[in-house]
């Protein structure tokens, strides 16, 4: 069983599916139907494989399911794959969200369905590749290539200002990556290897670390996104189709956080320690600033986009506390945000499919006609607010506890986000769902159909599962995080 190259399978099955889709031919209607079916089943197979990985994951530190094919042995670049406890759950999350996205686009995408599905499967390949890569250059290739399908999805199936948004998204991320590429070359050159496992224990010179760190930071901070590199996110979200937003919020933002855990912190611990106050400051600004901006948004998607910035502020703060609680909390917060914000975008998508508007003021009182939707939307609103029992709370409270261990003021200012978060989310909910049904167009709005239930119910299960018994997730990455924290402590003690 272990001889099976399961990670490669997961990476290449979607490509295979995409290839099949490109072969689909015939009448338009049948093409659309077959395309969707192929895409759905391909992504489901990958998801099942990811669950299989999860169930068979060994409870020990280090990387598992290793694969290695030498590519350029002269400079030590190989096709190396492997998973540890941290990346495992991100792979599962990605594999989970892709079928959700395909289902969510079932009816709303009416043009170029073939290309759309191909791009989504390509995206899946690249996402899983990013989290599995154990070679710095391979990681970079996957990491950067992710941009392309996303750029196309926004640019082709997006809203009216999609070109601006797509270019802004592309340029922002590209600007960060150029520095990242230089840093990678420098890191590989100094250490003589691109193997992440070797780099994790390699000790870079302190001065070099101080140089490398900002280069990595530039790339991950844009992806996360941290204030002030966040302005691409609201535009990208607003213009992207629903499924695009789901992947963007659910997985692409996590790549930034993952980059911090995988590269910045363990490879450059001294520099991370040196720059931690900067990260805290930006994190706190992100939380308060983005929350306040979210409060004033008139477009639902923009509001959720800004709330993502605030939530990712918790993640970065948690990571840079270098405490077990903080890093555990940050990972849970990322998983939780991956589910919750994805679900919130799906909720907006449900409304958009029916009314073709995202303006908050166009809604109000829809609970009368959509009670089931109102309930589901409420669950995700509360999870976003961080109510105990939902996934949002566990991450937040762990980050807060770790932040308090570092500094009381940090915990206080971070905590203010709890209040503001409740304010903007509940206000949004009130304006959209409650009140009298005034807008005449809303009179005939229909409640969720079966397909939409199938999308939401697994996410709800995930949200409560993560909120009530996070242990089944934490157990996978606990040892890896403990290892990381010990590594940091020994390195920083010197």
């Amino acid at each position, binding site marked *: 069983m272990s001889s099976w190259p399961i990670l490669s399978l997961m990476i290449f099955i979607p490509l295979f599916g995409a290839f099949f889709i490109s072969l689909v031919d015939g009448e338009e209607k049948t093409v659309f139907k077959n395309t969707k079916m192929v895409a759905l089943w391909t992504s489901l197979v990958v998801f099942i494989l990811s669950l299989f990985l999860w169930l068979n994951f060994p409870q020990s530190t280090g990387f598992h399911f290793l694969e290695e094919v030498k590519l350029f042995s002269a400079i030590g670049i190989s096709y190396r794959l492997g998973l540890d406890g941290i990346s495992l759950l991100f792979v599962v999350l990605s594999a989970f969200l892709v079928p959700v996205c395909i289902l969510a686009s079932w009816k709303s995408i009416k043009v170029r369905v073939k290309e759309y599905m191909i791009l989504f499967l390509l995206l899946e390949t690249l996402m899983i590749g990013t989290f599995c890569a154990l070679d710095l250059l391979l990681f970079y290739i996957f990491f950067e290539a992710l941009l392309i399908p996303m750029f196309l999805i926004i640019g082709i199936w997006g809203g009216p200002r999609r070109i601006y948004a797509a*270019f*802004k998204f592309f*340029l*922002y991320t590209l600007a960060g990556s150029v520095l990242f590429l230089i840093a990678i070359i420098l890191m590989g050159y100094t250490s003589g290897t691109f193997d992440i496992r070797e780099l994790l224990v390699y000790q870079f010179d302190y001065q070099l670390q101080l140089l490398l760190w900002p280069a990595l930071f530039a790339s991950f901070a844009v992806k996360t996104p941290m204030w*002030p*590199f966040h*302005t*691409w996110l*609201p535009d990208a979200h607003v213009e992207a189709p629903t499924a695009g937003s789901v992947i963007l919020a659910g997985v692409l933002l996590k790549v930034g956080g993952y980059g911090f855990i995988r590269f910045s912190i363990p490879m450059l611990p001294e520099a991370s320690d040196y720059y931690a106050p900067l990260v805290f400051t930006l994190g706190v600004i992100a939380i308060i*600033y983005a929350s*306040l*901006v*979210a*409060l*004033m*948004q008139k477009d639902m998607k923009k509001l959720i986009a800004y709330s993502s910035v605030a939530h990712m502020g918790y993640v970065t703060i948690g990571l840079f506390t270098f*405490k*077990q*609680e903080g890093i*555990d*909390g940050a990972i849970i917060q990322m998983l939780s945000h991956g589910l919750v914000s994805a679900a919130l975008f799906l909720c907006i998508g449900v409304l958009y499919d029916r009314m073709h508007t995202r303006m908050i003021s166009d809604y109000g*009182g829809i*609970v009368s006609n959509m009670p089931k939707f109102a309930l589901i939307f409420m669950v995700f609103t*509360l999870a976003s607010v961080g*109510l*105990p*029992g939902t996934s949002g*709370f*566990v991450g937040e*409270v*762990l980050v*807060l*506890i770790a*932040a*308090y*261990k570092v500094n*009381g003021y940090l*915990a*206080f200012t971070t*905590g*203010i986000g*709890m*209040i*503001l978060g*409740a*304010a903007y989310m*509940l*206000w949004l909910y*009130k304006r959209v*769902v*409650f*009140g*009298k049904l005034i807008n005449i167009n809303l009179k005939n709005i229909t409640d969720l159909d079966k397909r939409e239930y199938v999308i939401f119910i697994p996410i709800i299960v995930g949200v409560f599962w993560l909120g*009530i*018994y*996070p*242990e089944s997730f*934490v157990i996978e990455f*606990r040892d890896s995080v*403990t290892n990381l924290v010990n590594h940091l402590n020994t390195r920083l003690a010197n």
Partner: protein
Amino acid sequence: MLKLLVFLPLMGSILSGLFPKFLGKKGVIWVPTLFSFLSLFFSVILLAQAIGGEAYITHLCYWIKSEALTVSWSLRLDVLSAVMLFVVMLVSSLVHLYSIGYMDHDEHKARFFSYLSLFTFAMLMLVTSNNFLQLFFGWEGVGLCSYLLIGFWFKKQSANAAAIKAFIVNRVGDLGLILGICVIYKLTGSLDFNVVFDKTSSFLESNIHFFNLSIPYIELACFLLFIGAMGKSAQIGLHTWLADAMEGPTPVSALIHAATMVTAGVFLVARCSPLFEYAPIALNFVILVGAATSIFAACIAITQNDIKKIIAYSTCSQLGYMFFACGVSAYSAGMFHLMTHAFFKALLFLGAGSVIHALSDEQDIRKMGGLAKALPYTCAAMWIGSLALAGLPPFAGFFSKDIILEAAWGHHSTFGYIAFYLGLIAAFLTAFYSWKILFMVFHGKPRTDISSAHESPLYILIPLFILSIGAIISGWVGYSMVDTHHDFWLGSILILDSHQALVNAHHAPLLVKLSPIIVAVLGIYFAWLFYIRKVHLPKIYSEKYSKLYEISRNKFWFDEIYDFILTRQLKNIGNVFWTLGDIRIIDRFGPNGIAHLCSLVASKIKSFQSGYVYHYAFTMFFGLIILFSWQFLIYFGWL
């Protein structure tokens, strides 16, 4: 049994909330109601067991494990939680029953009962928690249900606004609580009550430096926990949500905003008595806030005209009593008052609900009057409730309020005396506004047409009857709670030997013991004078002291000030950040700026590619000159 007790309401909630079709029209009402009566039955048994000395902790499963932080879902039974279980279940079951009658005409009954049961579950999780985080779960859970139930009539704008306000003001308190939890975790490395309380003595010496002050950490922890309690229990400063919360259906006001949820703050302080006992500054702060709230809320209550708002402010004021009782280390007196208050305040609210129901949703007492004949049972219930609230013997409030005031006196400190005198004045005002309600609603001449008023159905009267009995007897039945000769609480509340307020209370001079009754009688007399005997007096006095009257009527302008300072400013800042920060600065100098710069530079450079040969030749020539001159300079050694 404890598990069943706690999870039955959750089951009821899920069943009637998610499967209304399965249960049918009657099922959605009766299933949660029956489940809650079943839980009530268990809670009686458990209370008897706990008083008999049985205490245990049931571990369910782990919740969060991260390094030293190990938090599990578990249920704790001791005397303190058993008392709370009983109070919560009793009021909750009765309110379920009452709602069957009260919500008869509502089309969203299933949702209502689901929320009520969910609330009960959250409250039970709160009181049976064995660690701070699960307490926080219950804490936020009851806050959520309160939010849902205040906004139950979602078509009313005011109800929605009140619901959000309640949630957010509570969140301010919750921030204090969660930070308090962080402090405790940092000090002890645990959040389990037993471990934390055992380790308390080990960190008494550690101080935190705050500007030039050096404060013991435990003071900070207790202070933060108390901020949380202030939010939930609507103490001065964070009280603004409670009056607005009256937008919700009346049974909700009785259950959540009188008997159970708002008392969670008092429960928290009592539960954390092993911490508070070592934090004298925080305790003084508790006394001060409690005393200030008791008088402040009473002052507002006397000039309000909405029957529910008067009772709401009265709740606020009574919670103040409970807090300063805790502040003088008479936690048991606070808990005692919590219990008696739960009976008579739930009674008053349900009675008020009965009146409102009879008058088809009229809440303004100026439009009532002379209802005693039409609503005899309700009237009797309201009289009993008011007598208990005013603290007249032999009703329940007499015992508990008396012991609190005596304990405040027995604290023998400046703060104690302040609390005692403020509490006395508040007692006078309490009697005054209680009888204002009674006289304006039930006696005198009708001010509007009340001919259609009718007595409520049995579903409403039975809970009133049971609560009336509670309001009469719970005082002397529960008196052993504050008896200092034997420890009723069996160690679930800690009082240091040096804190003798409760013992002193039993040796208070006769005048101190009698004064609460005297002021209560005086209050009733003045109410009678103002609202029965000389009905023109209120008008004269409100004009004579118009400024004071305005202050009280406008609730000290707390809402307006908060709105002006916080809400509006925050929205303004949000707008500024967005339009100025994001659009004008980051975007303008960031991506858009760079893009603009690129195209600018490109447009300049573009002109070089003109396509004319002589342009290219000139450029080449120019370049050669530079190249040659550079070589020359190097050759001659000038560079």
